[in-house]
């Protein structure tokens, strides 16, 4: 029997493998309980995988972001056509990292009277009445895994036009991702303007 002695050395790795499977099946961290944020905390008080599921992970890998659906059909086009400036609503763009989304009160200072009978404005009024802010969805969001710390103020101070990154807002209703803000986009502009190319300028 030429194979009889072979069996002995097959048994060893197989035993280890079987043992591994056994431990895997019995380990407290295995199983399918890891869906949703609340389930995470129940399974392990400290650690979870980086993504909720394989699909999530794949979407993040290919930098696929969901298309935002806004609660109000806000129209930038109309506002800008009526002579408003970007900074009238996005008030902190010149001073801080975030441009700032106007509060529901700011909307209503004008819309108390202007176009108050329109359906969408009534929705805003309703938010105000309930004491809620409008749940705007982010349009230009970086995936958290790219660890970009973008700051608007230095860019405005350097004279970068809003439209450079956000497209021509006079033609947009709700904001859409007009420009693909990938690293190549940032870097080529930084190169042009002789801005810092140090990684840690943006990633920290």
């Amino acid at each position, binding site marked *: 029997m030429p194979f009889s002695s072979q069996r002995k050395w097959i048994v060893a790795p197989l035993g280890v493998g079987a043992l591994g499977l056994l431990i895997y099946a019995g380990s407290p961290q295995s199983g399918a309980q890891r869906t949703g944020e609340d389930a995470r905390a129940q399974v392990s008080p400290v650690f979870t995988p980086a993504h909720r599921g394989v699909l999530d992970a794949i979407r993040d890998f290919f930098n696929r972001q969901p298309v935002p659906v806004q609660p109000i059909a806000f129209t930038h086009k109309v506002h800008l056509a009526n002579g408003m400036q970007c900074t009238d609503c996005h008030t902190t763009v010149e001073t801080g990292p975030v441009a700032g989304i106007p509060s529901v009160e700011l909307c209503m200072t004008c819309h108390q009277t202007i176009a108050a009978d329109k359906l969408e404005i009534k929705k805003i009024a309703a938010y105000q009445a309930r004491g809620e802010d409008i749940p705007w969805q982010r349009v230009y969001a970086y995936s958290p895994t790219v660890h970009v710390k973008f700051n608007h103020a230095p860019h405005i101070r350097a004279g970068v036009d809003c439209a450079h990154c956000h497209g021509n807002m006079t033609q947009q209703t709700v904001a859409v991702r007009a420009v693909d803000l990938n690293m190549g986009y940032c*870097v080529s502009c930084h190169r042009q303007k002789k801005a810092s*190319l*140090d*990684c840690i300028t943006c990633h920290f």
Partner: protein
Amino acid sequence: MKAVYGLYSDPERAQRAADSLRAAGIPDRDITVISGEPLEEFEFGRRDHRTPMPWLAALGGVLGGGSGYLLSSLTQRAYPIPTGGMPIVAQWTNGIVTYELTMLGAILMTLVTLLITAGIPDWRAQLYDPAVSDGYILIGVINPPDDSRIEIERRLRESGTAAVKEVVLRRRFGSKLQGATG
């Protein structure tokens, strides 16, 4: 396309057949020789022995090394990551990449040269006989002139083969590797 060939059980006879065909005025390049193992000890097995392959391999090495050096040094310049007082283009370490790609270039060039000069892969029907794998040596002529066919057959047979075969080769991709025997 037609071919005439004989199968020889030992290289001495094959050599005699080849010599005989040559004596009949058939140029060397028209005589097909096929064997199941290299027959370097025989004149007919040493045909086309000269090849620039070593030089081409060296050229491949130079090309590979050059691209390796350019790859490493140009990319270091393309996005000059600060290195804290150390050089942006690090020649010593780039040497390692250059070295590996030199060898890779030589290996790939050898491989490509082999495939092209040996005429593989080529799955079309060609003059061949599976008896080669039983240790026979095939000596044959592709598309012999009609007037000298009898003469070729005679010479092949005289050199000591059991059977002279005639085949029709169908030049069709993916057809059987040997034609029908006649």
